[in-house]
């Protein structure tokens, strides 16, 4: 047994999750808000524990490896990001009107459980642990997606998500079985030596490569990587907004984390001959996300495609496979949390405002004239969208900058039969895609700023009393808090990214 103390945050969070279930039973239905507060406090506790862990051992814990899991700066980084996104998600839930108040406990518990799954996922160095953690995330997410039980869209999103998830986990399991066959273990690192364990003989064996391919697709499902992305728009559109926001962020970056660990560090893609494959998938992911997003009229769906594209950008870093690539992946993941959650928060403020049926209010037309209804919300949204598009001086730019830099530097030092053109092509496709993305991000801006609030463009559901939409739009304090945090991140990391970069750089040499 290893030192369980290192898992204290996860354990604490699980216990708090269980406590939440109990509290659900005890707490009266009216005070459901209390449970949400409980939930974010729980996440904050875990956050604090991780932070403490980071601070006591002179800033960074020594990596513990050789077992099923490692605790190293990279894993802690991702855990922090995940916890941050959970806290922000709970903030969104506090303002969201569509969730059944009676089931707040279930909701929060599932949220917390899936968070535990993610935290273990980014630490895992064992295929079995990876699989179980992934399943924990998946099962919780299925339920969360279908949480608006009476909403057929929610149902449909959940069932599609579920079927797709089950299908890909079946494939992944098959891959794991092959992995076991090839290596005789489920470990990704050698139990004896603490270093990298790469079954040297096996990397060229078809069993092993096929195993890694199937596993890759299993990860690809969670990370919304093409061609495993089909569920994303449907699930996001169907899911309650905070859930969609959560799904677009937390599981994705956690999976990116494990993807990076596996395919960059433990079993580098280059050694598998997967570089070109991954590059192609990255290009496909970006292109699919961006080009299909051009057609969306539903903002949730649009952001879903955008999040697919974002995953594509992050994949650039993984393809590069260099230290710079890892830095880029880490950097972008954190930045992505801030900007994507921020964007979803604004969507919630606009879409969830007043109408209880939850239908149609996420149409682009709902954003008409937002600048006049609430300039601050419009500006918030603009900042997040521009950051997603990668325009300076926002954080998204720094992230993309790193990723493209990683691609170019990988191209310069490309060796071993991999053409540098792969990397250069990836960079070029990447930048072109970011141009395409501007089109639809700016389409939202167009609706917010250019169209008058009551224009007849696009059919809008009349509000309950049939009157015109309220002239001004007000969002609650938690939502604004969430927005403020996100904006602070987007701006701060964009203008002064050095502290973040320094931390990210520190985490690289500690990787097993």
């Amino acid at each position, binding site marked *: *047994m290893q030192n369980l103390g290192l*898992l204290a945050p996860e354990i604490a969070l*699980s216990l708090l*999750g*269980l406590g939440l*279930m109990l509290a659900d039973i005890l707490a009266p*239905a009216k005070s459901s808000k209390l449970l949400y507060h409980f939930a974010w406090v729980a996440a904050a506790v875990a956050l604090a524990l991780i932070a403490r862990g980071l601070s006591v051992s002179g800033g960074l814990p020594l990596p513990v490896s050789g*077992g*099923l*899991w490692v605790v190293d700066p990279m894993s802690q980084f991702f855990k922090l990001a995940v916890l941050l996104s959970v806290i922000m998600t709970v903030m969104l839930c506090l303002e969201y009107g569509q969730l*059944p108040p*009676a*089931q707040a406990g*279930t909701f929060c*518990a*599932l949220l917390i*459980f*899936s968070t*535990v*799954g993610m935290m*273990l996922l980014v630490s895992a160095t*064992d295929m*079995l*642990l990876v699989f*179980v*953690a992934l*399943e*924990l995330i998946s*099962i*919780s997410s*299925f*339920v969360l997606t*279908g*949480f608006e*039980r*009476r909403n057929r869209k929610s149902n449909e999103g959940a069932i599609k998500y579920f079927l797709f998830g089950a299908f890909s986990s079946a494939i992944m399991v098959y891959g794991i079985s*092959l992995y076991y066959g090839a290596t005789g273990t489920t470990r990704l690192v050698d139990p004896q030596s603490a270093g990298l364990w790469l079954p040297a003989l096996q990397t060229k*064996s*078809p*069993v092993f490569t*096929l195993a890694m391919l199937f596993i890759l697709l299993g990860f690809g499902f969670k990370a919304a990587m093409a061609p495993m992305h089909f569920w994303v728009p449907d699930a996001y559109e169907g899911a309650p907004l905070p859930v969609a926001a959560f799904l677009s962020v937390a599981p994705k970056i956690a999976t990116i984390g494990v993807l990076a660990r596996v395919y960059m560090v433990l079993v580098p893609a280059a050694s598998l001959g997967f570089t070109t494959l991954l590059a192609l998938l990255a290009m496909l992911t970006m292109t699919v996300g961006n080009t299909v997003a051009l057609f969306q009229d539903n903002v949730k769906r649009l952001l879903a495609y955008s999040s697919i594209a974002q995953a594509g950008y992050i994949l650039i870093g993984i393809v590069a496979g260099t230290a710079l690539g890892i830095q880029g992946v880490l950097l972008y993941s954190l930045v992505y949390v801030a900007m994507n959650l921020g964007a979803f928060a604004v969507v919630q403020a606009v879409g969830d405002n007043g109408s209880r049926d939850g239908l149609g209010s996420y149409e682009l037309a709902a954003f008409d004239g937002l600048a006049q209804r609430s300039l601050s919300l419009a500006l918030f949204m603009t900042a997040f969208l521009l950051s997603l598009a990668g325009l300076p001086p926002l954080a998204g730019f720094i992230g993309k900058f790193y990723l493209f830099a990683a691609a170019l530097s990988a191209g310069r030092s490309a060796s071993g039969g991999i053409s540098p053109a792969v990397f250069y092509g990836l960079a070029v496709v990447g930048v072109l895609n970011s141009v395409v993305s501007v089109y639809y991000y700016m389409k939202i801006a167009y609706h917010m700023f250019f169209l008058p609030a009551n224009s007849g463009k696009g059919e809008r559901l009349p509000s309950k009393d049939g009157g015109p939409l309220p002239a001004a739009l007000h969002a609650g304090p938690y939502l604004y808090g969430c927005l403020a945090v996100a904006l602070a991140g987007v701006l701060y990391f964009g203008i002064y990214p050095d502290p973040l970069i320094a931390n990210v750089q520190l985490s690289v040499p500690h990787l097993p």
Partner: protein
Amino acid sequence: MIEAIAFYCMAAVALTGAVMVVTLRNTVHSALALGLSLAGVAGLFACLGADFLFAGQLLIYVGGIAILIIFAVMLLGRASNLHLRQINQQWAAALLVCAITGAGLWRLVGIFRHTSSSAPATATTRSIGLLMLGDYALPFELISLVLLAALLGAVFFSRKDIS
């Protein structure tokens, strides 16, 4: 020789069941066939000397999951209309996909065509137990969370609205 006969019998059961699962019109029959197929797989586990796994398969899969599915199918009732074809129109494409995948997997089979084992079958229960509470303690604990989550979900979906 006996092993071979047992293997082929069990394999036949498992595969026949599986084919029936995906081809039969009546979902109830499909579900029953699933149970059959799962049982066949359990038999294969036995052939491989995996006693605990054999038991687990029988208890959880055949006894649990298959039954659960049958219940669910029964509950859906009308959904399993017999006159509707249960295979959609993309079967040809699906067949092609399966063929290509199969061609890929065939390569793996080729590698292990002559791998045989001389190890005697031993009781595995103790070792598995040790492993689960030793090395695999963490995933083992995590599984409980998975089940808990599934439970929460099932309860959530199934219970009536309180309001």
